[in-house]
């Protein structure tokens, strides 16, 4: 058993209390309904293709619409308005980190890892404006994100500490009633939370909760801890919707190819024609 930070223990206690109210006894459901919403091992069935419908990837906090940074893109490059997904609206940055966030925002075109097609990290992968697919088995839950072919495996049996820091981290899951709780750490310090420069270090610890509401909506929460950056844990929440098109499938967005001119154009023998 790994030692848990105090806040994590508190969180679990709160969860246990909450799930006591939410859990529906299996016997109360009709067998057909139980089959539709459950996997063979009796867990809520999260399999499928999902996507958020919000502007969190532009900015986790409330923001008005604004012009984009690239004049030729016109309205297609503008930022859509959106209400914040941060509980209480405030992201509790420590003073130095708040200054860093401002710097990041000012230089976002140069620094945002999404511009370079880098892996999105967690939780950003969830609310990229692309679908993702959950593949749920008893031992592993694979999540593949259409953006940049990002992928993570949620281990339902704890493999121990992450062997190496990575973009997508190491995720360990367990069920609390109908909620899939994912403990994610082992991140590097390279990914951002959004295009507004919200950031973290390699001490990032994310606790995600996926709770089905009916068969086509997941209520998603992510609690974010990073003691060198934030004065306290903070939380985002949003619904995730099932993509219901009959022919829906994840398609390829291998954006490495799309950023070669941006990243490597300076090394060309002959500069590319504009």
């Amino acid at each position, binding site marked *: 058993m790994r030692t848990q930070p105090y806040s994590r223990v508190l969180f679990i206690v709160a969860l246990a209390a909450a799930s006591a109210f939410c859990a529906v006894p299996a016997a109360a459901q009709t067998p057909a309904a139980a089959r539709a919403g459950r996997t063979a091992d009796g867990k809520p069935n999260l399999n499928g293709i999902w996507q958020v419908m919000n502007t969190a990837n532009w900015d986790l906090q409330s923001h008005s619409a604004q012009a984009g940074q690239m004049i030729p893109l016109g309205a297609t490059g503008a930022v859509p308005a959106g209400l914040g997904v941060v509980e209480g609206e405030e992201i509790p940055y420590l003073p130095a980190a708040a200054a860093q966030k401002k710097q990041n925002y000012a230089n976002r075109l140069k620094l945002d890892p999404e511009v370079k097609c880098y892996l999105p990290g967690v939780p950003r992968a969830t609310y990229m404006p692309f679908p993702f697919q959950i593949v749920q*088995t008893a031992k592993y839950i*694979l999540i*593949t994100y259409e953006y940049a*072919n990002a992928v993570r495996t949620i281990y339902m049996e704890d493999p121990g500490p992450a062997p190496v820091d990575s*973009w997508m981290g190491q995720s360990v899951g367990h069920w609390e009633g109908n909620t899939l709780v994912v403990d994610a750490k082992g991140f590097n310090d390279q990914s951002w939370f959004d295009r507004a420069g919200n950031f973290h270090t390699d001490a990032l610890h994310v606790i995600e909760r996926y709770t089905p509401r009916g068969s086509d909506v997941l209520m998603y929460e992510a609690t974010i801890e990073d003691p060198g950056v934030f004065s306290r844990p903070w939380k985002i929440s949003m619904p995730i919707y099932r993509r219901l098109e009959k022919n829906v499938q994840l398609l390829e967005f*291998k954006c490495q190819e799309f950023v*070669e*001119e941006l990243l*490597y154009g300076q090394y*060309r023998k002959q500069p590319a024609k504009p």
Partner: protein
Amino acid sequence: MNHRLLVSIIGLSGLIAPSAYPQAAKTNSTYTPPRTPDGQPDLQGIWNSATITTLERPAELAGKAFFTPQEAVAYEKKFAVDANRDVRGSNGATDVAGAYNQGWFDRGTKVVPSLRTSLVTNPPDGKIPYSAEGQKRLADAAEHTRAHYTDGPEELTLADRCILWRTAGPPMLPGPYNSNYQIFQTPGYVVIAVEMIHDVRFIPLDGRPHLPPNMKQWLGDSRGHWEGNTLVVDTTNFTEKPRFLGTTGKLHLTERFTRTSADAITYEFTVDDPAMFSKPWSASFPLNRSQGPIYEYACHEGNYAVPGILGGARKAERETSR
């Protein structure tokens, strides 16, 4: 490179050592695979495709379709010697450098259990049946590459560009290292997660049609169905850009996955591309169970190859023009 990463790489090279499979093991046709909860034959697990058998039969083995068990042992021994696996450096520095370089590679140590001298099973000569047009395409592409390799990023290999690992598939092939795949199954899907460049193939089993023909993907578009205990996967909609032996957007790939023991899947594929080959051809090799785990291969994020190769070429040009 930070300390933890180094430790992880050292650990990785130990973890992915290929499991040995018995020489000349007979495929057990009576093997009954376990079933997934929804009744599919169970292909799940982490699998490794490493083998030293080459795709095409080597010229020196012309006319010889199979090794004898003794010949296979001799071939494996020669491979180990040729790969410098047993060679120690003449001093500490060369010894360490050689071991470091070899530490990256994991080509396997064994030939395929059928003892066939090529992965190609059809045609029987073990050679890929390039058409005259296909040979010309390859020759033209090679000539272009010789002249323009360092002109810009799109001239480099797909692996250098972190777009597609040559052996990641489809079709899968044995690669130089990290030939690791994890298969997941849920009702209606078989999913193959490839370690290299973290590609994931979703194979729907519900009989839906392929994508519209104007949609092209690096990994194509796969559809699967079960024939008895064999998963048959049909893949079309490949990109027009050469991605596998010069194949074109006309490539039509059929793959067959059959679990033949607790620790092996027999993988077979048939390649049909009238723009490259005079007839369809097939290959087969085993996927062997691996302990894993699958690591994150964040290739593009750490790509020093492209700026290094192109930047080096520009520097060389500046120096020669002085």
